[in-house]
């Protein structure tokens, strides 16, 4: 293992402070309140990361009951609201971040599947297996009813084979373009014939399955889909492909070859268990490097959920889901099997306005509410400078360039001159803080 994944240790030049913790909670979850962030600072890097990693595998049965209730409604809005509610739970942060990751990776849209229950069950599969061994997750996804419907495998038969599933499996889910041949796809499609759905569950139809001999990646046998999956996860390209995607999600949008090699090696060395890889990655120098810090653009979910937590606001999950959808991230309905492209694509001028207006709406109680009002966040802070610093601590971990702080002070001073009441002034200041360029970055 090269240097990159060596654990980060705090030094006086590179302390473990609110900036580091802010970075950790933004990447490994959907943000956190200032109090939670301060608690994590006090724990120090090892304990803080361990705490966060533990949220990848929350226990408890409350989840199963909640899921039953959601399934009973068979309504996409409710499934989506449930997912948003889960994403706001502190004890599940990394699990939910991972489910978001897998949802983008194995992107399946209800627009074609048209089955909210199946979508809810697919998400639950990610919740359950997303931090485990990739082999297991992949095997489950390939039997997932929503996935089979989405990629037309529910009509893939020996007589009329359909290659869509095999193609996306190789191209988008495991290997990436150029790492397989057309022949591999054709033969793999034959292996997955008969992998169908009945009564909303996976159902293998032996009489529709092609029982002939196939050759996939050089291996020849009368094989079925399971064997294809074994062959594909064993390929080194698979480890690199996943490593690249994990790095894009957790570290930097354009991973370097050395980074990919390091993570791929860690993945193979740890039984291909995603949770184990993340425990190493999130603890590493690479993760806490300047290169990784604020290198990504916040997705709509990052912005919406992160803001709600930072401000200690209350808002209905349905409203938050709608806000995210208006900004281009409609959970359970990704635009295509490629998922969301994200990064700069999230930030058109129109999207910027939506993001800014969302924060304004929260502060103005047009959407959700802050209880108590915004002025309470600045209780006991008498000077404009102190209030501005507090606003930046709340929303930006105190890390803003001097030009930005100066611009905030001008806003706060204008509010004073206009004789604004404390709540109005506080709301304006917080809104201004959220309009700083840095706030769009994760």
């Amino acid at each position, binding site marked *: 293992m090269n240097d990159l994944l060596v654990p980060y240790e705090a030094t006086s030049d590179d302390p473990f402070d609110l900036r580091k913790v802010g970075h950790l909670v933004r990447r490994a979850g959907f943000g956190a309140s200032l109090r939670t962030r301060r608690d994590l600072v006090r724990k120090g890097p090892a304990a803080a990361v361990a705490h966060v990693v533990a949220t990848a595998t929350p226990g408890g049965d409350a989840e199963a009951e909640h899921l039953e209730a959601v399934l009973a409604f068979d309504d996409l809005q409710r499934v989506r609201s449930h997912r948003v509610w889960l994403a706001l739970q502190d004890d599940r942060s990394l699990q939910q971040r991972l489910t978001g990751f897998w949802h983008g990776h194995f992107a399946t849209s209800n627009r074609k599947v048209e089955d909210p229950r199946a979508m809810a069950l697919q998400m639950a599969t990610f919740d359950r297996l997303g931090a485990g061994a990739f082999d297991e997750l992949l095997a489950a996804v390939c039997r997932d009813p929503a996935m089979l419907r989405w990629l037309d495998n529910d009509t893939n038969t020996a007589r009329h084979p359909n290659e869509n599933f095999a193609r996306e499996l190789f191209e988008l889910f495991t290997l990436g373009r150029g790492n397989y041949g057309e022949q591999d796809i054709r033969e793999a499609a034959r292996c997955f014939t008969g992998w169908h759905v009945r009564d909303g569950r996976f159902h293998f139809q032996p009489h529709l399955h092609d029982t002939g001999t196939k050759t996939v990646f050089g291996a020849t046998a009368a094989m079925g889909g399971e064997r294809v999956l074994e062959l594909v996860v064993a390929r080194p390209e698979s480890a690199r492909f996943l490593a690249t995607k994990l790095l894009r999600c957790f570290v930097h949008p354009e991973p370097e070859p050395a980074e990919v090699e390091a993570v791929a090696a860690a993945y193979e060395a740890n039984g291909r268990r995603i949770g184990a890889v993340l425990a190493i990655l999130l603890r590493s120098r690479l993760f806490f490097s300047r290169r990784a810090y604020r290198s990504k653009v916040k997705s709509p979910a990052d912005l919406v959920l992160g803001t709600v937590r930072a401000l200690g606001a209350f808002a209905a999950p349905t409203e938050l889901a709608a806000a995210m959808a208006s900004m281009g991230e409609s959970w359970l309905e990704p635009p295509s099997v490629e998922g969301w492209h994200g990064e700069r694509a999230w930030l058109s001028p129109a999207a910027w306005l939506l993001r800014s207006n969302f924060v304004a709406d929260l502060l103005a109680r047009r959407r959700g509410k802050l209880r108590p009002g915004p002025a309470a966040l600045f209780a006991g802070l008498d000077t404009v400078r102190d209030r501005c610093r507090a606003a930046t601590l709340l929303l930006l971990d105190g890390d803003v360039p001097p030009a930005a702080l100066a611009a905030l002070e001008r*806003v706060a001073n204008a509010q004073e001159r206009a004789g604004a009441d404390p709540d109005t002034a506080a709301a304006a200041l917080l809104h201004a803080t959220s309009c700083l360029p840095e706030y769009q970055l994760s």
Partner: protein
Amino acid sequence: MMPIDRRSFLQIAGAVPLGFGLRGSGSLVPGGDDRVLLVVELVGGNDGLNTVIPVDDERYAKLRPKLAVVRKGAHALGDGTALHPALHRLAGHVAAGRGAVVHGVGYPRPDRSHFRSRDIWHTADPSHTRVQTGTTGWLGRSADQLSGKTAGFPAAAVGALEVPLALRARRANVPSLRRVEDFQWLQARASEPIVAADPMRAVVAATSPQARDDLRTFVGETGSAAVGLADDLAATLARYRPRAVYPETQLGRDLQLAARLCIAGFGARLLHTGFPGFDTHARQLPAHAGLLAQLDEALDALLQDLVAHGAADRVTVLVHSEFGRRVAENASQGTDHGAAAPVFAWLGSIRGGPHGPVPDLGRLDDGDLIASCDFRSVYADVLRWLELDATSVLGGDFGSAGLVAASVR
């Protein structure tokens, strides 16, 4: 009223300091003469055969014993076809020379998947299979030709949650405009927009001069463009007064927003809006009639509004769907995915009335109508009318559908 140029208007209105929010040279003159294309996409596969009915063809009623009832009250186009009874206002526009119908529009080797066929119409590429990072749409490529020549936003999606593939561009920034209210920059307390003199404005691009990388610069510029967009829209809205009554439907609202953008000179020259619901596999008669009635009312309001504002010559509206439907009705009093279908065009310099041969119900391709017109020739006509390089946008020369009269400028 003497047309005033946009800069003067904004100075007078005090809306924005000169130079802020104005990008590039403007052609944002109220009532100015920039040509605009509005594409209205009927999503789901509109049943062309029941929209433009081959009333004189006996085979039609034989293949559609239940669905052929729409012949009664249909509005004759003069070539043996007639518009669905619900389209009475639009029939009036056709009769007045403001509307055209092109029969049998499609592409080779029709794809009957909604996703693929829509993508094909959006990319203008029948060989398209999958959307990838670099995929652009025909309107997006057109926007790229315009960007730099037009201030602000050469194209916009109207009423959509996401910008459709048709508008995906390489360089041009294409917003999606749903409600007028979404595009004001709101304050955190009052519901009023943030005004020009507000120190909030300096915040959006406030980053360190030694910003390490272009990510922060990109974000700052996006923020500034956003604020500029809000200003442009506010100014635009101030200039528009409707001269028609739009129905209180989503389509009505979307078309009215499109009209505002066309008439008040927002600067966008390529607009797209979608009208969903056309996938009528079962019980088609009431559903289809309802949809066409909505289309009739909303589109008529748009056309009237544009005419009343003197904008009829410089706006073309194109109406199409991703495919038509099978000729024979199915067992559920509906129809299944088909192929060729009619395309409609309104205003601009279109040559009114029907175009092309009436679909031949005796010569079908596996139960589907065969296209007699490649959709790209229709696109080419409107692109040339917009004075854009059609060959470059479409990746080839697809001739002409004869839709647009030789333009006199």
